[in-house]
């Protein structure tokens, strides 16, 4: 990531700031909060924020919402996967709420996305309409 790229990325966020949903707005605020901390590396904060934004986009395409409990930095935060249609937790509720790390979140979202993509193409799983139903036919 070079200097120009980062400025361009900030510019893109700024241009689209009115289009951000509440979760994304929260992420921007949390990013700035993390950047304000002296003990954190700015590149790590920005990279984690970009990873979360990309994961949110993939999740949203599949009707999955990401719940976040911000613990000062994205790397230390906890996440949950929520089925937006049924408002039920798909992952990250055990052993305690928001127990997925950012790494685990990416893996879980990719797994659910793959499962849902597969379910959409298969007759045998045609009744699986949401991610919460998908594990039952795995």
């Amino acid at each position: 990531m070079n200097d120009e790229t980062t400025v361009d990325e900030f510019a893109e966020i700024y241009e689209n700031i009115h289009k951000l949903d509440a979760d994304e707005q929260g992420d921007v605020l949390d990013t700035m909060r993390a950047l304000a901390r002296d003990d954190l590396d700015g590149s790590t904060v920005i990279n984690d924020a970009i990873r979360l934004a990309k994961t949110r986009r993939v999740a949203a395409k599949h009707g999955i919402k990401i719940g976040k409990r911000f613990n000062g930095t994205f790397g230390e935060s906890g996440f949950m996967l929520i089925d937006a249609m049924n408002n039920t937790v798909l992952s990250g509720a055990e052993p305690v709420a928001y127990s997925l790390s950012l790494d685990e979140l990416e893996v879980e979202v990719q797994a659910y996305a793959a499962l849902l993509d597969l379910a959409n193409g298969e007759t045998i799983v045609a009744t699986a309409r949401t991610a919460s139903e998908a594990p039952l036919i795995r």
Partner: protein
Amino acid sequence: MENTSISTAKQAASRLESLVSKLDDVGFEAIFAFTFALLQGKSEEQAIAACNKILIADGKAPLPPLHPAKKEIVS
């Protein structure tokens, strides 16, 4: 090693946090306006003006004016 723009954003966030009691009170849009102005190479006064524009539009209190001695801390 952080690149310059990330370092500037980090300084901007710290600077803004020192101007307000809580970043949450200012809101994400105003915070971003402040940071982005500095990233574009504008002065801190201009960044505060950009931030205040949004704060006033939202019906919030503007940021306090810069103390002369504290001007241009973030360049």
